[in-house]
């Protein structure tokens, strides 16, 4: 069942004001396509589910809720940064109305979790997922708050640590929720849940690092990115004088964090370990299309 179908099911029998329900359905229809357009995060939950050997249907509401949550974050980001969008919010052009609609959309995303059935998943697992959901959402909100308040001209004692905390809170927590939440719903083995949650945190953090390092020119807003944090941390020495490329620094970071994932997964069943490492390889070790074309 698609995210859109879950939305339709959750909105049934609420008697929402018609224009508000239309707006929510309009957004969900557009966002239903996002996972297919984003190979970096679209397949994450089904892949972890398959590796753990559980059935998909019982956890489908979680995947739908997480996909909607991701769409909420994207929409909130655009709204806060004033970015141009190809899917304008279906309401009047006033900030207060737009923020309220995104807030309602977030409530809907969380509400889709109500469709997890205690007939199919033990209640204690659903409760643990709700706890993780709230924990990670609060971390994401904290990361976004820092992003919005700590701009590139802000001076801090440890800019790279500040940036790392921000990246982990914003994007690390998003994927810790995807990996860890799937594990919580499908197993009670705490060792597996811990390892997958940490792997998700690293996966999301690496996505943020890579986007910041390799797509620096396309970052439209003055947010604190990794290259900016590097300049602040090392203003007049090796960063600009060594001749390194962002790609080399990225490769170095990836190697170190990848080793951390290998360590976290050690001792788990080989299929699970190899499958998660394949997921990392598929996302981070594939040569970008423009480089393949030049080769």
């Amino acid at each position, binding site marked *: 069942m698609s995210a859109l179908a879950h939305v339709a099911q959750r909105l049934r029998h609420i008697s929402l004001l018609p224009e508000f329900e239309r707006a929510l359905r309009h957004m969900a229809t557009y966002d239903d396509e996002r996972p297919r357009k984003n190979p970096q995060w679209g397949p994450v939950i089904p892949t972890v589910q398959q590796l753990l050997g559980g059935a998909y249907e019982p956890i489908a509401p979680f995947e739908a809720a997480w996909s909607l949550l991701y769409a909420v974050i994207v929409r909130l980001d655009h709204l806060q940064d004033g970015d141009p969008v190809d899917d304008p919010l279906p309401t009047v052009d006033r900030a207060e109305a737009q923020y309220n609609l995104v807030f309602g959309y977030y409530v809907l995303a969380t509400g889709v979790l109500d469709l997890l059935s205690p007939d199919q998943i033990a209640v204690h697992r659903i409760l643990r997922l709700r706890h993780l959901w709230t924990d990670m959402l609060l971390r994401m909100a904290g990361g976004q708050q820092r992003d919005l308040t700590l701009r590139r001209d802000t001076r801090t004692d440890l800019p790279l640590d500040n940036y790392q905390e921000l990246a982990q809170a914003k994007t690390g927590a998003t994927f810790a929720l995807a990996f860890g939440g799937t594990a919580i719903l499908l197993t009670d083995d705490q060792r597996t849940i811990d390892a997958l949650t940490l792997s998700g945190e690293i996966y999301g953090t690496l996505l943020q690092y890579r986007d910041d390092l390799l797509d620096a020119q396309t970052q439209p807003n003055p947010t604190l990115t990794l290259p900016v944090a590097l300049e602040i941390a090392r203003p007049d020495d090796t960063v600009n004088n060594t001749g*390194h490329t962002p*790609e080399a620094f*990225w490769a170095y970071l990836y190697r170190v964090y990848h080793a951390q994932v290998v360590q976290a997964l050690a001792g788990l069943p080989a299929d699970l370990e190899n499958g998660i490492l394949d997921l990392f390889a598929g996302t981070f070790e594939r040569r970008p299309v423009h480089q393949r074309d030049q080769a």
Partner: protein
Amino acid sequence: MDDIRSPQDETSQGDIAHSLSHDGPVPSTEETSARRSDRLATLPSLTVLAAGFFSAVSLLPDGVLESINTMGGRGH
């Protein structure tokens, strides 16, 4: 209040409860949050990694950096 469940309902409810039961103690959500928080704080520090990277790069002989730079984009 009368119990309106049929014996059939009771059996199927019981089966479901059994199949979803958990063997052994379930850690409290607060306990698992605390452990998670500790583990997520253990990622390698960017400050330390950047110091190591740029120290190493500045000492590299000519030509070596070029080969490192060509690694980029593919991770490792």
